[in-house]
């Protein structure tokens, strides 16, 4: 019961923050709403007993990605950019499309029973993740490393100020 109540509170919080992200006029406020939404999702992960992913969500999304986003906003803030609507001309169609998408998915998920087990999560889940990364999933693990390397090299190339 308590868990369900917590889930509902966090779900409302997360969705509210997400709505704030996409509708806020001030792009900096959008970013802060986004941080709130990330935090809400992290609590949902803890409710799913995925503590490692929950904490990784905070470290990567709030600590790294949100910081990058806020920096990009600070660096690309144009004085005139705040005027006018934050939305483009097709926003009404986008809203309709998103609403239809949600309706279809919600209808699907409430109809289909995917089944569920009563199995508990293993006690040493974190060690199992660590071992899994270098045994079964060693290729994605090394590819992740290469992906990060390429992203770093590419981003440095793009973002570097050219000295004329």
């Amino acid at each position, binding site marked *: 019961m308590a868990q369900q109540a917590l889930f509902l509170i966090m779900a409302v919080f997360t969705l509210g923050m997400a709505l704030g992200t996409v509708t806020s006029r001030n792009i900096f406020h959008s970013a802060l709403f986004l941080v709130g939404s990330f935090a809400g999702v992290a609590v949902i992960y803890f409710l799913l007993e995925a503590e490692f992913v929950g904490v990784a969500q905070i470290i990567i999304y709030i600590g790294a990605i949100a910081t990058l986003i806020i920096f990009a906003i600070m660096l690309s803030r144009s*004085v005139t950019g705040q005027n006018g609507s934050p939305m483009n001309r097709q926003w009404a169609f986008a809203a309709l499309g998103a609403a239809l998408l949600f309706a279809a998915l919600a209808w699907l998920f409430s109809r289909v029973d995917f089944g569920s087990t009563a199995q508990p999560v293993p006690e040493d889940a974190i060690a199992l993740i*660590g071992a899994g990364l*270098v*045994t079964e999933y060693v290729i994605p693990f090394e590819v992740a490393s290469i992906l990060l*390397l390429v992203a*770093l090299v590419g981003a440095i*190339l793009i*973002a*570097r100020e050219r000295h004329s």
Partner: protein
Amino acid sequence: MLEHYGLIGALALIALIFPFVGVGVAWLLRPKRPDPIKNSVYECGVETIGDTWVQFRAQYYLFALIFVVFDVEIMFLFPIAVAFQRLDMMQVFYVILFVVLLADGLLYAWRKKALEWQ
């Protein structure tokens, strides 16, 4: 697992409310006499010129980038460190390969002078 986080949850709630309680108490006690000069931006007594959000150099962004990449890397290394006693030599080699690949990124940034502060 969840019972471990009960105290953290309670602490989160209290720690979020408590600072506002402090500010609220101060709000009851403190004087409230705002005036335009007092509320103007502090700039050592000089009038503020221009917009605050002036252009900053992308230098800061480069450091944020390198930070992000290493942040993700460390997040991968922690569960491996916990599982370390179960790994054999070959698997340790994979871990070292992972670290070395990312160290290449640092070397590249070094070579490209992205680590210099100009």
